[in-house]
């Protein structure tokens, strides 16, 4: 388990009270982000993202699944977060299970609330078949602020996900699905509603964006918001003492920074996929 000594913590807090952080960032600054897309040939969409020392690999697999009779959903998204042994050992020990299910449920709720891919275009047979997106997230290195890194990587992976075209034929109530053989006959997803998380840590009386592992460990509270390109909020998670005024102040920051971050992310993904 990662720990921060008393001296280290007080140094960290004093620096933050003066408006700077031990790694030289200002309070509302992200660490450098690098992202690569299409890294896994065996997945429908994939990305590898590095945020400071945090590194994650995301693979999206698309398949056709059955749905319950009465349900009208066109899409199911399942998230699994797995911590590769290398990241696990030092960091979590036995907490790993809790930790990954926490991340999973945050992502799942955010994507569900935002209704990300609910479009007529992706309809198969309502009440019978729907698309199932399996999002497998592998954490390669834990350097703090996992949620933001994972959500950005997931979004990047979705942006490159290809959905094969399917032709539906009905024969006396029996549906037959035929997948187009042409590998180029694929559709892309619209990801403008896919949220990304922005996480603040409360240290002393100040909030810092994108906390590092050290900062996360010494934080008094934490505040995570899922936001999309329009600035709509789909998920909020906080613990520790926060009052209402602070919260609304943070939300305005989130709205501004979130848009900037997402635009930059989309831009770099475009550049990356065009160069490969």
């Amino acid at each position, binding site marked *: 388990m990662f720990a921060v000594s008393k001296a280290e913590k007080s140094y960290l807090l004093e620096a933050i009270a003066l408006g700077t952080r031990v790694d030289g960032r200002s309070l509302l600054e992200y660490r450098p982000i690098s992202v690569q897309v299409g890294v*896994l040939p065996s997945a429908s969409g994939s990305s590898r993202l590095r945020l400071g*020392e945090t590194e994650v690999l995301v693979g999206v697999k698309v398949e056709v699944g059955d749905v319950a009779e009465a349900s009208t959903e066109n899409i199911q998204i399942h998230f699994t977060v797995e911590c590769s042994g290398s990241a696990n050992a030092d960091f979590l020990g036995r907490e790993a299970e809790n930790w990954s299910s926490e991340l999973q449920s945050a992502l799942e709720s955010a994507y569900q609330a935002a209704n990300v891919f609910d479009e007529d275009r992706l309809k198969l047979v309502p009440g019978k078949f729907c698309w199932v997106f399996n999002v497998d997230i592998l954490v390669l290195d834990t350097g703090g602020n996992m949620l933001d890194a994972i959500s950005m990587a997931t979004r990047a992976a979705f942006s490159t996900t290809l959905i094969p075209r399917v032709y539906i034929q009905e024969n006396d109530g029996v549906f037959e699905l035929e997948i187009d053989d042409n590998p180029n006959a694929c559709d892309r997803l619209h990801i403008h509603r896919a949220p990304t998380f922005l996480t603040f840590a409360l240290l002393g009386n100040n909030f810092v964006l994108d906390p590092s592992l050290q900062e996360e460990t010494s934080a008094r509270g934490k505040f995570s918001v899922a936001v999309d390109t329009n600035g709509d909020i789909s998920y909020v998670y906080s613990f520790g003492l926060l009052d209402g005024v602070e919260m609304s102040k943070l939300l305005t920051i989130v709205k501004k920074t979130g848009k900037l971050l997402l635009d930059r992310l989309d831009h770099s993904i475009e550049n990356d996929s065009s160069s490969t």
Partner: protein
Amino acid sequence: MPREELISPDGLRTDGRRPLEVRKITCRIGILPRADGSCHLEMGNTVVLATVYGPRELSSRQPFSGIIRCEYSMATFASTDRRRRGKKSDRTSVEIASSIKKTFESVLLTDLFPHSRVDVYIQVLQADGGERSAAINAVTIAMVNAGIPMKDLIISCSSGYMENTTVMDLNNVETLVRGPQLTLAIYAHSGKVALAHWESKAAFEIFEHLIAVAKEGCLQILDVIHSNIEKYSLRLIASRDSISRK
């Protein structure tokens, strides 16, 4: 139904290689800054990430010489059909982990770090045959990166026999045929066998032949890996110079 042929009439394999040719190897050393040693190794489409921590303190004080712990896991998206979750400790993974652990116990100079342990984590990111070999090679490089004393480098390669031809470094299609297949790991310099894994029935001559082919493959791989380690080390030395001159 005619079987898909693995060796074309021109003598080329499904991925365009000749029978006695290994796949393209690329490796990146020291990519995880928080680990003591790490290596991202690609052998064709098989991609493995090995991480080494240690030597570090052992909580129980029993053994006099150092011990090695090894964990092997395959990512859910590694192969084309998605594996269900929670299979981290399935039998193949445990078996591979323990064979790698034993292989490296014989080569690490564990007496030099008593009462301590070395943790090895292997993550398969893409599986296209030869994961065991790729894992061993990646761990060797990660050990070098971590600076853990070893007697020799361990290099591994697979070989197989199909359609009257011996081929080296099998890919996934060739592995699925279930012909005679051998995974061999050798000490790079002495040429001694560190690990041999064989689970099929074949004539003794074929076995002997496969060993020779796998050894040849190991030497080809050693060339690539050795030059990669050398390049990495030279870069480290160069960077030290540039710092001390300032």
